[in-house]
């Protein structure tokens, strides 16, 4: 049976924890709003990009097309770009992304492919290091970055393209958590290279028509080559932003339930404390009364 002092200490410590989780929840809520705004602001660019790429894709000559679009004909070396947070305490956020990437990595290894991993964010590297440590070829650290910008995505994009051109991998896939809502973040895999483009021509008469009238300056293949590189960066940027929003959302709900659990624990401990105190008083009273009766 813990003494009264022990109980008092525990109550105080749980209360302090609750204050911290409460504060973290509120910080996450504020950051979430900013992250969501950033994600919304980035959407028009990505949409236009998709549209133009779709149009180009429908018209461009596939034979001479860039390897970024049609692949380099091989399917041997896979690069998994795993985006996670820099910090923990956000529920299953980091674990879920890592789990998805790990499952895919194991499936690829089992079918005889070579797997390389590039981690963006410290938590992913920590999580995958134990069993896939030797596969991690590159780590990008965004710890010092407060608000992810296009420049961060560009840096990763340049690295990816350089690696692809040096023939270090054949297929690249991006792993990140898509932001569905504050309580739901869906770990997602997105193939970056060869690019998966929206098929504008397939069965969509209106889009194909709109695409048919454009003139291209310089010629289509050149624009397509340029845009494909841009597109990788745009996709990475989107991944970063979605991840940032998801991370804050996950942290918010994790901290919300932590705060609630702390509250419940405090209630339980307080009842226990009061009972104990009352028991002590009763015991003392009995001692006094029986002492008085004995006289």
């Amino acid at each position, binding site marked *: 049976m813990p003494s009264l002092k022990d109980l008092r200490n525990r109550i105080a410590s749980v209360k302090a924890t609750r204050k911290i989780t409460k504060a973290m929840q509120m910080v996450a809520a504020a950051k979430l709003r900013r992250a969501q705004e950033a994600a919304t602001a980035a959407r028009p660019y990505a949409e236009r990009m998709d549209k133009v790429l779709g149009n180009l894709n429908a018209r461009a000559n596939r034979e001479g097309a860039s390897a970024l679009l049609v692949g380099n004909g091989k399917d041997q070396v896979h690069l998994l770009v795993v985006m996670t947070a820099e910090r923990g305490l956000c529920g299953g956020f980091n674990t879920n992304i890592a789990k998805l990437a790990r499952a895919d990595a194991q499936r690829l290894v089992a079918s005889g492919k070579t797997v390389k991993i590039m981690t963006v964010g410290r938590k992913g590297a920590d999580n995958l290091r134990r069993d896939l440590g030797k596969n991690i070829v590159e780590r990008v650290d965004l710890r010092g970055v407060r608000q992810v910008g*296009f420049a961060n995505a560009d840096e990763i994009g340049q690295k990816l393209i350089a690696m692809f051109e040096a023939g270090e991998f054949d297929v690249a896939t991006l792993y990140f958590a898509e932001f569905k809502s504050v309580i739901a973040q869906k770990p997602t895999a997105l193939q970056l290279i060869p690019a998966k483009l929206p098929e504008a021509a397939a069965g969509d008469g209106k889009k194909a028509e709109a695409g048919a009238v454009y003139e291209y300056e310089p010629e289509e293949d050149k624009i397509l080559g340029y845009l494909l590189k841009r597109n990788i960066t745009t996709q990475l940027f989107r991944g970063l932003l979605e991840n940032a929003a998801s991370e804050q959302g996950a942290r918010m709900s994790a901290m919300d339930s932590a705060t609630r659990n702390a509250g419940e624990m405090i209630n339980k401990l307080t009842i226990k404390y009061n009972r104990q105190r009352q028991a002590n008083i009763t015991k003392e009273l009995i001692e006094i009364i029986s002492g008085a009766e004995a006289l």
Partner: protein
Amino acid sequence: MAGTFKFELVSPERILISGDAEQAVLPGSEGQMTIFAGHAPVVTTLRPGMIEVAIGGASKKIFVKSGFAEIDAERVTVLAEKAYEAGELDAARVAEELRTAEAELADAKDDEAMLMAASAVEQLRALGGKAA
């Protein structure tokens, strides 16, 4: 004049300009182009340079560092990788951009990259002169 068209300048991080414009000058990769309403549909890449757009009588100048534009009869959409309004550009920022552009010029691998970087340097030098 054929009236106005919808002009949008979008960078990955935000929409910089959105409005009805009478005229826009874009630094196309194959030459400067002036656009009025009713332009033939074109998709073009941009080289570093100034975009000048006339919206509601006022003219706005924006420096863009590469990107591309989608033009048709009633709308122009510019997707710029990096864009600064002329007012946002101060000497420090110009100097910084100039440094990156010069570095790019130094290690440009092919003619095209060299051309892009050279035109960035040239544009920024001109700007730097103004800002300083």
